[in-house]
């Protein structure tokens, strides 16, 4: 007979001294823990509720400017430093950790319209409505120096006066060129008082400009004529153009997928585009109830933050149709500029009420040092929540946000209006001859302009359309234009552009494209 029974001596399974850690034994056998899935579900539900309890995103306001904040720039060298420029021509460098001004850059006469920092973080470029571009030296000392000096003000390294007021500026990611937007797009070198290159497509003012993070020579601009234009510095002419129904206030490139950019539009939406295929937006991000004023991508490329005229800041997924998060406070007025911090964990907003505000990117994230066990727990809860996020109860809790009353009402009103318009359109379609009413696209790209023109051409000259829609563009070029230089094409767009509706009562009535 061979026999063995379980026999545990206490010494083997308990700690020897009282200072020791308790001994822990694991057995992952599923039969030991019953109803695992139900337990996980309950944990997910509790985690979702706890997230709501701990959601305190607002960290602090940075007070100091005397007029509304127009623009901001991140300092790539210092995680905790940020530049801001206001309407009264004041530029400040902030230390986000202590939330104080470190340095001031006086000089601009009118509003500061654009700020940008060179890639090495040593030169700050500002431009304003006083027709000047100013280059400032950002010494390491005044950033690293933490003791506060009220008269710590810098002198510009260079001041370049030019013909027109500027609206925006952006620095190349890799290289020492920067571009300003105004009556035209000017490309500047640090050392020359005149632009090295000038682009012009259309007659209206360009209002925003951003360089591509992957390809240093490509930049995107948006203009008052509701267009988004892509430029390539290596070519002598603009590359592509899209015309939207309403104007685009700002553009941000996705730093991780640099062919994609997202445009913050006046019609309360953001549109994500693939720069190679401008025919249709990859994603429309809806949720704001007033014009979106500024947009900035997280360095992870997975999220972006938007600031809006409706006094809220929202965070969207790069591919999500609705916002993940909304931030608002009673005192925050219209938001003109937002930035995602370089470590993707904070969001800074600058608004009409002369304050910069610092927010957490994840509202319920724990600040400070997180112990490994704690971190593991957070990760586990996050995973469980992610697993059960589709269940109605979890979804409801995760999605719910308290909205300020005006925003809530405006959202309802907007929903009703859009719905009414849609219904009206449907009825019009139902009661007219089939094919007589075309659904207007939100934007038209040049390609579709060609298509339209081609269709018209075919109609009048009885030339059959090519069977393949993809070939339309090529076909048209061959058929009609011959060797028309690309830079002249915009004239066509200009000529056939409808005038924007004059009496716009609200933001969402789109100017129709005929």
């Amino acid at each position, binding site marked *: *007979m*061979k*026999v*063995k*029974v*379980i*026999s*545990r*001596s*206490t010494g*083997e*399974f*308990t700690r020897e001294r009282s200072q020791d850690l*308790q*001994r*822990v*034994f*694991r*057995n*992952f*056998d*599923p*039969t*030991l*823990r*019953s*109803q*695992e*899935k*139900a*337990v*996980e*579900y*309950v*944990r997910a539900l*509790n985690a979702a509720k706890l997230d709501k309890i701990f959601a305190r995103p607002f960290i602090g306001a940075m007070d100091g400017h005397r007029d509304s904040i127009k623009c901001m720039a991140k300092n790539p060298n210092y995680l905790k430093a940020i530049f801001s420029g206001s309407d009264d021509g004041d530029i400040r460098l902030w230390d986000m950790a202590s939330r104080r001004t470190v340095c001031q850059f006086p000089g601009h006469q009118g509003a500061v319209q654009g700020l940008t920092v060179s890639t090495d973080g040593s030169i700050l470029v500002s431009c304003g409505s006083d027709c000047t571009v100013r280059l400032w030296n950002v010494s390491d000392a005044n950033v690293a120096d933490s003791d506060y000096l009220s008269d710590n003000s810098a002198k510009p390294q260079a001041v370049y006066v030019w013909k027109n007021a500027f609206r925006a500026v952006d620095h190349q990611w890799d290289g020492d060129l920067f571009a300003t937007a105004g009556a035209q797009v000017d490309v500047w070198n640090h050392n020359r008082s005149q632009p090295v290159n000038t682009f012009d497509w259309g007659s209206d003012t360009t209002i925003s400009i951003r360089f591509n993070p992957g390809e240093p020579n490509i930049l995107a601009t948006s203009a008052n004529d509701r267009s988004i234009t892509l430029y390539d510095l290596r070519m002598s002419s603009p590359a592509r153009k899209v015309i939207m129904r309403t104007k685009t206030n700002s553009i941000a490139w996705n730093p991780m997928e640099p062919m994609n950019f997202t445009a913050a539009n006046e019609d309360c939406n953001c549109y994500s585009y693939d720069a190679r295929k401008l025919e249709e937006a990859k994603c429309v991000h809806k949720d704001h109830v007033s014009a979106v004023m500024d947009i900035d991508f997280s360095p992870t490329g997975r999220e972006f933050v938007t600031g809006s005229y409706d006094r809220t800041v929202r965070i969207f997924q790069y591919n999500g149709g609705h916002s993940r998060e909304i931030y608002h406070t009673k005192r925050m007025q219209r938001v003109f500029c937002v930035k995602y911090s370089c470590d993707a964990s904070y969001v800074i907003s600058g608004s009409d009420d002369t304050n910069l505000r610092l927010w957490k990117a994840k509202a319920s994230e724990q600040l400070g040092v997180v112990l490994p*066990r704690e971190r*593991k727990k957070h*990760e*586990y809860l996050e*995973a469980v929540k992610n*697993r*059960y996020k589709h*269940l109605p109860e979890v979804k409801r809790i995760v999605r719910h946000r308290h909205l300020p009353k005006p925003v809530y009402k405006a959202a309802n009103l907007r929903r009703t209006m859009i719905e009414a318009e849609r219904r009206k359109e449907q009825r019009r379609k139902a009661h007219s001859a089939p094919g007589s009413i075309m659904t207007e696209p939100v934007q038209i790209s040049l390609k579709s302009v060609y298509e339209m023109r081609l269709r018209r051409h075919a109609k009048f000259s009885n030339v059959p359309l090519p069977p393949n829609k993809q070939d339309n563009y090529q076909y048209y070029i061959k058929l009609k234009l011959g060797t028309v230089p690309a830079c002249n094409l915009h004239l066509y767009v200009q000529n056939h552009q409808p005038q924007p509706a004059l009496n716009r009562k609200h933001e969402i009535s789109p100017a129709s494209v005929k």
Partner: protein
Amino acid sequence: MKFPMKWAVSLHRQFAASILKFQQPNFTRLRLSRGLSSKAKPPVTMGAKKENSDDEMDEKVKKYLRGDAANLEGVKDKKLKGQLAVREDLYGKSAKTAAKIEKWLLPSEGGYLEAEGIEKTWRIKQESIAREVDILSSRNQYDIVLPELGPYTLDFTSNGRYMAAAGRKGHLAIVDMKTLNLIKEIQVRETVRDVAYLHNELFFAAAQKKYPYIYNREGTELHCLKEHGPVLRLQFLKNHFLLASINKFGQLRYQDVTMGEMIGNFRTGLGRTDVMQVNPFNGVVALGHSSGTVTMWKPTSSVPLVKMLCHPGPVSSLAFHPNGHLMATSGRENKIKIWDLRKFEVIQTLPCHAKTLNFSQKGLLAAGTGSFIQILADFSGSQNYSSYMTHSMAKGYQVGKVLFRPYEDILGIGHSMGWSSILIPGSGEPNFDSWVANPFETSKQRREKEVHSLLDKLPPETIMLDPTKVGTVRVPQKKEKPTKKDIEAEMEAAIETAKGTEFKKKTKGRNKPSKRATKRREMIDKAKRPFLEQQTQERETSRKKQKTNPETEMPKSLQRFVRQKAT
């Protein structure tokens, strides 16, 4: 040989920390033993052994996979498909790691009893086992003789450390089974029918003459649960913090012990019974009735989930396998039946009587009747139970309850003369999980665990026959009601077919056109009838519904005085 450093990386996050703890001490030891064995054995046998171990490994991996992988064939979204594939891969890896951990890193091995020569395991006596095992284990064989306070019933805490014993004549005792110290004993001076531990050793419930009571470890009465009435059997659902009871009048009650709320109160309508058992796998309560039926209940429905006729006579006891797929029932007609709960079919019928049944963690089945106890086991793994061990108590002892002690190779027996404990090698789970049930729990750990288990307390809705259904999509099974149009179309079609039927040529006189026309009309009417009947029936039911509405009963002039129901 390569050893777990690589596995740990791929492991499920939740488990990773503990593995790292296990790795270091075992690393050298295992390498040494493997090195020796590979030297000693020729390479051929090594190959065969490897194949064998592969099969064993596959089986273990399957256990940890918890079901089949999702079928990604039909997923159109490429990105989602990729993400899901990565997730499935991760699951596979973590299951593999868990299997490897089970094979190499678990600290203790299970007990066993092997007969040699002409010996048979069921002839081996407890005395001979006592001679072979260590002193510590042999201390677990004892009889406590308490003849006055007569038949005893037992309950263990989920970690097997503490035992509550209740004598019919009012004797309640709490014993620390590790040190065999009596912690507290009280005399309640009335009949005690059952005792059940709540979530830890601090609280237990006793079913007494008129009501069940909750006591704490010091023997202080905390609650009197008057609503339950004269309870015959008590069970505690530890994931849900529910105390389930069945009383003399056949009423099943569920009470939430955290908030004191009565969750469910159902009349079984099948008479008095004291056969009640919770299925640990899904929290479903099963009752055995005198009619031979077994009913299964959940706290959110007033009708049983399952009602199965198990025996021709009364059901005397039932027990659930810890994996939830097997149920054993015994009837008065001297039969034990093993049921597959996935198909609700009998797997095996054994010809023996049992007053009490209990499954151990490793799947041994103990059956007690009179003064005789039999242990059944399936050696083949194919649910074919046969005799493993037997034990006879002293003559005249009546076994009332057998209960395996969790995480130990021990069977506790409550009988008419006290309680006893015998050794059943191979019955208990050798490796405990400190986060699930820890026999060496300190008071601090106990407090921590109490908080966590309260945070993870499951709502009563999660009790269902298949607990893996939580969080899945319910496929709509209800057929859509045919619309009016459909019914009309169907009727038209039936009429058309009736019109189109060809008649046989009949003899003269019967083949007249008038006769043929009437015949055709009759056929059309016949085709129409079922549809028309259905219509009239529907109309009538709708009229009946209207009638029951109080507003329509009144004369119209009075209707405005009818009080509106608060909404």
